[in-house]
């Protein structure tokens, strides 16, 4: 129940699709999605494998609550060894694709090997078949999704695909489903492209059942009421989206600006949620058309937006004069503050291109920021960029490079390396604002201390979605802690990491945790699934998953030395705002973190810890 209890194993080298039962002993320990798929990956893939070799595997995974009535129960993930990082990657997406896969009766798809020529996987309930993707290779996500639906005459079909970026080896390519929802980070789309796998098209009509429908209805209804009554999930996110944070974080002095040279952006309000609501001069319409929800989500934080039809990016280009996925906070920050661009329409356009060509706007924007810094320093010149003036705040440079990166052309191909390889290439590796090769998201850890530890220890490289201590340090959820103090942050980060591990393994969205505690989540899982799922057991799943991922990375060659931050954050103090004069105090937090985790001083889980977690 709630699990379909079936895995589809697709060997791309052989062209075979085979069904196997889900390992329920593992499900009992890893729940589903992030946890369970990571277990499969760890069991089946050599941690030292080249992420782009046929020996790497790509797992598409749902959780037990994916496809159910639980609010936000539409999540799914891509688990693989990340192309951007070389670390274990789990990229989570919403939309409708994950639920559809579950309705077709599959918990996971494990892709192995590499197809001889481009293929896509077609799933109609029990029937799964690899199809020739010659007609779709070289096409964008938008073209591919439309084309597959038309070819199969099924507007209800759900598609997850890569764009040209994933085909061309852009290191931070993602997998995009439902036109603008993305398994965005760590280069999971790059891995998919390396396997010559263009898309997965699914139609499911079998549905998902739960163990105890009455208890489940009660638990999910109670939990929905909690979301509705909460100020963040009931009002802030539906009305403003995650973009509600732009002005808040800027005022906190933690909005990384121009490749983290500054911590406040003078143009923040121009690219904020409030700006998205302002009617435009040209057509009187605001940037924001409305909010849209992923499957089963009663929050509805998604932004659906349009670009000013007179804006230079879309003039005479009708295909972009539509409503589509608009700016979320992380994207707005990376495309805007990180590059110094304050043109809302340019950011929205760049975001459209990120969706259309399936690459991560965070890594893209941050890499542009690094490239701009190198250009301003005179290290990168017009000769390198093909004539593009890569100056701070140049919107045209940003949007031009978005299109070039999508297609893997010109200087876009260099941007597609990601900031780590790009800055190394130009001899300034310190200017890559990244951890384990993955660029930071939108919180400067000098102004929000806990996020420094979050980034440094994240198993998939710098990431806000592994322990969102911003909730506590800025928003006061579940209780307010001082963002400028590193005291007690090790314990806070661990608590967030473990809880998030459980949420990510359930099929739920981590945004629910603005309102939900584990006390709201456990009864939903318990009613849906066989077995007893208490808060304690779920947190143990979270901790187990964290240690499992850690072990994979250690075996892959990472060490405690990689749990660090760029020099800029550790040495160069914030220049303005509440955090003025502060650096991140990682050195204080990390030893305590290791100790609380039950790891050695070098960051290796002790045997006691591994035994306790049955690893």
């Amino acid at each position, binding site marked *: 129940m709630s699990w379909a209890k079936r895995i589809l194993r697709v060997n791309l080298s052989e062209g075979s699709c085979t069904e196997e039962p889900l390992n329920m002993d593992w499900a009992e320990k890893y729940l589903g999605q992030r946890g369970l798929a990571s277990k499969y990956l760890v069991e089946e893939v050599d941690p030292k494998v080249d992420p782009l070799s046929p020996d790497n595997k790509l797992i598409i995974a749902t959780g037990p609550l994916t496809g159910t009535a639980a609010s936000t129960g539409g999540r799914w993930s891509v688990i693989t060894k990340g192309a951007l990082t070389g670390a274990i990657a789990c990229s989570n997406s919403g939309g409708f694709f994950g639920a559809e896969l579950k309705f077709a009766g599959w918990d996971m798809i494990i892709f192995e090997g590499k197809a001889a020529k481009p293929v896509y996987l077609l799933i109609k309930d029990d029937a799964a078949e690899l199809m020739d993707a010659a007609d779709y290779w070289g096409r964008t996500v938008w073209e591919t999704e439309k084309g597959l639906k038309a070819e199969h*005459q099924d507007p209800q079909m759900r598609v997850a695909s890569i764009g040209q970026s994933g085909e061309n080896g852009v290191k931070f390519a993602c997998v995009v489903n439902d036109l603008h929802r993305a398994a965005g980070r760590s280069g999971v789309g790059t891995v998919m492209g390396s396997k010559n796998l263009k898309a997965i098209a699914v139609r499911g009509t079998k549905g998902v059942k739960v163990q105890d429908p009455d208890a489940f209805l009660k638990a999910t209804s109670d939990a929905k009421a909690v979301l509705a009554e909460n100020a963040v999930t009931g009002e802030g996110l539906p009305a403003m989206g995650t973009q509600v944070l732009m002005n808040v974080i800027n005022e906190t002095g933690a909005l990384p600006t121009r490749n983290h040279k500054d911590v406040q952006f003078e143009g923040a309000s121009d690219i904020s949620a409030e700006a998205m609501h302002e009617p435009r001069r040209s057509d009187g319409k605001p940037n924001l058309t409305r909010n849209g929800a992923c499957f089963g989500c009663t929050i509805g934080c998604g932004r659906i937006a349009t670009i000013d039809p007179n804006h230079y990016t879309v003039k005479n280009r009708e295909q972009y004069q539509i409503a589509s996925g608009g700016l979320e906070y992380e994207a707005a920050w990376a495309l805007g503050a990180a590059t110094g661009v304050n043109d809302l329409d340019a950011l929205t356009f760049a975001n459209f291109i990120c969706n259309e060509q399936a690459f991560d706007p965070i890594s893209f924007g941050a890499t542009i920021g690094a490239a701009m810094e190198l250009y301003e320093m005179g290290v990168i010149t017009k000769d390198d960029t093909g004539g593009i003036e890569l100056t701070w705040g140049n919107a045209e440079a940003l949007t031009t490079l978005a299109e070039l990166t999508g297609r893997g052309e010109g200087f876009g191909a260099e941007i597609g390396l990601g900031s780590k390889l790009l800055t190394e290439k130009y001899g300034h590796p310190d200017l890559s604002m990244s951890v384990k090769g993955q660029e930071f998201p939108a919180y400067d850890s000098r102004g929000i201390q806990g996020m420094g530890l979050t980034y440094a220890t994240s198993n998939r490289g710098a990431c806000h979605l592994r322990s969102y201590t911003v909730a506590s340090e800025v928003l006061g959820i579940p209780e307010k802690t001082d963002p400028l103090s590193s005291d007690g942050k090790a314990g806070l980060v661990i608590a967030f990491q473990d809880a998030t591990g459980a949420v990510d393994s359930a099929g739920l969205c981590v945004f629910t945790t603005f309102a939900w505690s584990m006390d709201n989540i456990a009864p939903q899982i318990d009613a849906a699934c066989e077995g007893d799922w208490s808060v304690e057991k779920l947190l143990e799943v979270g901790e187990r998953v964290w240690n499992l991922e850690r072990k994979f990375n250690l075996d892959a060659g990472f060490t405690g030395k990689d749990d660090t931050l760029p020099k800029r954050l550790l040495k160069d103090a914030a220049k303005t705002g509440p955090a003025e004069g502060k650096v991140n105090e990682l050195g204080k937090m990390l030893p305590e973190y290791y100790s609380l985790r039950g790891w050695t001083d070098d960051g290796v889980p002790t045997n006691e810890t591994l035994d306790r977690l049955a690893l």
Partner: protein
Amino acid sequence: MNYVIIGAGPAGVAAAETLHKADAESSIILIGGEGKPPYSRMAIPYVLTGKIEEDGTYLRKSDGHYDRKGITFLQGQVSKVDPGAGMVALEGGQAVAYDKLLIATGATPLSPPIPGMDLDGVHHCWTLDDAAAIASRAQKGSNVVLMGAGFIGCIIMESLVERGVNLTVVEAENRMIARMMDATGGAMLKRWVEEKGVTLMTSTKVTGVAASGDKLTVSTDAGNDISADLVVVSVGVKPNIGFLEGSGVEVVTGIKVDDRLRSSIPNIYAAGDVAEGPEFGGGFQVHAVQPTAVDHGRIAALNMAGRDAKYGGSLIMNVLDTLGLVSASFGHWMGEDDVAVMVNANACNYVKLAFNGDHLVGALSIGRTDQIGVLRGLIQSRVKLGAWKNTLKQDPSRIAEAYVACLHG
């Protein structure tokens, strides 16, 4: 007022019920000719598959339904209509007087002019009695030849296959359901049924059936003889109008009726498969389909009861389940130049839309069951498609979106 309705199919029953609603004081006599309660021919295949018993085919299920509605149900075969005298004569001599008469006698199956059509073991599949006879012969493993792969033939096909017979279908046309599907769709259906183990011979005529012992031998113009335990004939139907000879009621293919379902004789109306009525978009046609029969019955009855009810014309439409492959057709899908087509032969998915300017005028669909009714809505509402026409040209499967967009537009 004495209302008489000849024929107890869907048109007749709908008319009788509407008459009762519109004019409860009058006498309503409904004449059925098969010795059964009013039933639905369309449901016969489901009797053959055992999905329902005979009573599952009855048009109305509750006991005493017709009495409650003030309808006198009379069993009998009408032999003659005498408009001058206002009388209907039944075989056996009984006569029934009417003030207003509705003819809803439906259709009769055709037999081709070849030898052997009267042999034991050669049956139409038209009445409940036919169904019982077929059921007794169509046993697991028996050899059955189905003459005709038209609409009715296809419906019967499923029940025969489910009974486990070895089935050979012989069709004179070059494809299956030639009147409701084009060559592309016909080819798709052919492959589908062949994959299900049916032997299908198209462009082949049965030239005769002969008895040989307790078996039948079916000869064809393809030269081969087929041995059979049962031959089912479904080569078409014709309106059931023989009894009207000499009555003065004008007949072309069916009984010619105007937009009030009135025949050439003012107090005689016709409805259903026997009527050649106004067609949606102009002209007159016999549209032997269930929704038209019911609409005819209802509108004819309203006019008989003195209301002025104009009939907007019937849209030809069909839906068919051929061994699990669902196909549908609506309106004028042939002969139009402005079409949108999407074929996915492997998956047996097909959609074809035919446009006239800004309007949808016809459609074919195979392999789709969701929201197919919107095709009727799009055609019959004459909605202007606007920008959606272009969208449909690129992806004709987006019919439901087009419909809802125009509806909420």
